């Protein structure tokens, strides 16, 4: 089977059209970045994030109000992933405290932050139950459950830890929450003896704590700087490598194409309102590697054709090289795009921004290796030919 027959498309003829389209896209990207900004995740913004899973979809306004009443600042509450609104991400700013106040400082703030958020979110009747010594089976960790079963329910140590392990294993596979006490009773491994105590002394709070993150401002700044450094460093590395393997103008053309890809993808990222986290930086670096890969394959062909046919008509040679490579370019982009699409739609909320960058980036990168990198080569040649002519005229 073949999608693409032997083609003879005049890619270079309309190069000014394509360069203009790219210029417009780049401007639009800058507008999107300036207008909407790039949303920063905790890693880059600093602060604390807690991911909470509710049994019933909660009212986000109520949550915001509770947090505000509890004295938190910089509050951002959003739903997280495709969970019918049951899973929410809570972002709060870190309180500023010097390091001088007896070792507490920033450490103290982060130490019980998650607990303080949990306490702030609890409805009064749950707080009362906890104060009365009842065990919240959606919050308690394995060690706590085991200890209570041993100390209060009178189970022996092995039995208590077995039951606790069974309960936490069940939670692990069910998004961390029990919806009814009946589910607790049904958990394989919960013995009659344990259930007798649990049914009396345990209850189900309205939510479970799924994860937490805490990044001090100095660290987030460092991560931002390092992210920029890594992307710039990778671009520089590419330039040097292609320069060595080909010629300087090839390297330059490839890098300009890469910058083009990066800006447009970043623009799309800002436009979609995605949130930048560490894997997103990884995705951008991968994009840089992937997109240049495509460009190089075309350049390799150009080099080969020049070796065979001489540099005479560069524009035609480039056209020929792109046409010869077209099916390969499209097919590899397509296969990679398949897997990235799978990640985007099935990979879960954590990996989604990562997949999004590659999803857009592969399209832009494929386009740029055909329509941007190669015309730039011609532009470079023309520039120097023009200079050469001028120099000759002067002499």
């Amino acid at each position, binding site marked *: *089977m*073949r999608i693409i027959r032997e083609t003879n498309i005049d890619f270079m003829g309309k190069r000014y059209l394509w360069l203009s389209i790219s210029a417009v896209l780049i401007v639009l990207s800058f507008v999107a970045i300036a207008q909407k900004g790039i949303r920063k995740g905790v890693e880059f913004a600093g602060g604390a994030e807690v*991911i909470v*899973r509710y049994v019933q979809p909660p009212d986000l306004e109520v949550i915001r109000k509770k947090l505000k009443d509890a004295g938190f600042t910089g509050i951002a509450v959003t739903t997280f992933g495709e969970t019918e609104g049951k899973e929410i991400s809570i972002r709060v700013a870190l309180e500023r405290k010097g390091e001088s106040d*007896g*070792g507490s400082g920033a*450490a103290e703030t*982060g*130490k*019980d932050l*998650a607990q303080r958020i949990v306490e702030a979110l609890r409805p009064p009747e749950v707080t009362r139950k906890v104060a009365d010594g009842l065990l919240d089976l959606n919050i308690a*960790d394995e*060690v706590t459950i085991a200890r209570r079963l041993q100390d209060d329910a009178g189970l022996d140590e092995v039995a208590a830890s077995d039951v606790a392990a069974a309960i936490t294993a069940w*939670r*692990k596979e*069910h*998004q*961390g929450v029990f919806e009814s006490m009946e589910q607790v009773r049904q958990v394989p491994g919960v013995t009659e003896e344990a259930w007798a105590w649990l049914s009396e002394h345990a209850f189900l709070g309205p939510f*479970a704590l*799924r*994860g937490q*993150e*805490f*990044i*001090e401002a100095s660290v987030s700044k460092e991560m931002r700087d390092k992210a920029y450094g*890594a*992307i710039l460093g*990778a671009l520089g*590395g*590419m330039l040097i*490598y*292609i320069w060595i*393997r080909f010629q300087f103008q090839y390297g330059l053309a490839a890098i300009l194409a890469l910058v083009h890809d990066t800006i447009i993808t970043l623009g799309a990222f800002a436009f979609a309102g995605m949130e930048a986290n*560490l*894997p997103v*930086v*990884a995705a951008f*670096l*991968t994009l840089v*590697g*992937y997109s240049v*890969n495509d460009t*190089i*394959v075309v350049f*390799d062909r150009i080099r080969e054709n020049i070796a065979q046919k001489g540099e005479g008509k560069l524009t035609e040679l480039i056209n020929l090289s792109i046409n010869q*490579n077209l099916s*390969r370019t499209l*097919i*590899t982009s397509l*296969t*990679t795009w*398949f*897997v*990235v699409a*799978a*990640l985007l739609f099935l*990979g*879960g909320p954590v*990996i989604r921004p*990562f997949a999004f960058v590659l999803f857009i980036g592969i399209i832009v990168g494929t386009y740029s290796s055909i329509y941007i990198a190669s015309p730039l080569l011609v532009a470079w040649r023309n520039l120097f030919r023009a200079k050469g002519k001028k120099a000759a005229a002067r002499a």
Partner: protein
Amino acid sequence: MKPVTWKLLIILAVLAWAVFQAWPRPGRPFLNMRLGLDLKGGSHLVMRVLTDDAVKAECDLAATRIATKLRKEGFTRVRASVGERVGEVIVTGIPADRLAEAKARLEDEWSTWAISIEGDRIVLQMPQSEIATIRDRAVRQALNTIRNRIDEFGVAEPNIQRLGGKEGDRILVQLPGVEDPARVKKILQTQARLELRLAYYAPDGSGPFRGLTKEDVIAQLGGEVPPGVEILPYEEIDKKTGERKIREWMAVEKSAIITGSDLQDARPNRGQWGDVVVSFELRVSAAERFARFTRENIGHIMPIVLDGKIRSAPVIRAEISTNGQIEGSFTYEEAEDLALVLRAGALPARVVTIEERTVGPSLGWDSIQAGIRAAALGFILVLVFMVIYYKGAGINAVVALVMNLLLVAAAMASLGATLTLPGIGGFILTVGMAVDANVLIFERIREELRAGRTVRGALDQGFGKALSAIIDANITTLIAALFLFQYGTGPVRGFAVTLSIGILASMFTAIFVSRTIFDLVIGDRPVQRLSI
């Protein structure tokens, strides 16, 4: 043997190695790979050691020695204290006409320090090299202590390492399976500098000096704190509210009779009235010293100072040799944790958490599920596409791809690399990229066939000519991965490792393995058509 037989043997050997490496082991069900904290669940902490503390402690010692020396030399009213700047000691109370003399006296013993006269004071500055050494030592000690504490706490497969080399003041602590990082952080951050000291008694035997405020105590001392004495808060925990508050202040000798390093053991216990205490036992060497000291000081108060705060202030009633206890309204868990940190040793400086990432087990589980589902779907899509598009050669590519995945898993397992969620992304991206090399070759073969070459000629040309493009393209991706590895911590590093291994493996599978398969299928037969 024919060359192709050799090649086949090499491939089978590699395959056998890969299957062996990637075979699931107990505790590592996922192709024998170690799972990252973001998949398994657990806590990732980065702690900073406030090394200024250690420098300050060292300066404190120097200040005491400086004051003692000058007093011996006849400067009776001299005082030495730690200055504002790091590594600075300031000497005051020297008559203006004797400043130069005092400076000369100090220069003998503190020859490496920069000593200058500023107004009516002498300022001594510790050399930078010594400060660097103290900082480095503090971080190394902290690393050791943190390791001990984690061991005592009992976490399976922890990863504890110093970040940033010899200059670095950060310690990375990765704790798989820890769900409640608050408690661990508290344990790690407690400095646990335990000291048994003596309350200050004036030369005339009066004392102790205690009062509701610091100023009150200073007033009792006659407006000035004697050298070698400091005023410390006595903290108490309100049993009802659980809040800490200062009960009183007390003048205490600076030098300690017993420190944490003299402890043989520490355990939580029930005290006389059923309250929770931490009881400790001293090493034999310290026990003798302690016995003599307590015998000589019966009736005096011996405050137990923990991290610069008095936790209890018992009166010495009898000679004590090996056993003692710390009282002070603990919960049982707090007593357990205090005993743990006392056993594991003190931190040379305060430690604060600057970065924390905790993934609960259920979130990690969801990530694995979603990651695997996405990877499987992506993989199947690529395989189906390849077989439809390239028919026979597509099957060849599929074999190469499957082997590629197996090799990546095996290499990661044998290197002890960690699979993270972005790593799963890298895994699946490898599939998309590995197929690139196959596509390059296959397209080239088709082109050569169209140009009228024989099957065998087209194969040779296709593999030969595609090689330079494959190598160049992959090396640039490796460059990107290298920067990624430099940049990232944890999950992102996992991605960079997975991607790099995937690229290297894909060069082997697409070039070597695919070629061998073609050779095997075609053999010596004169083939007219190639399914491609």
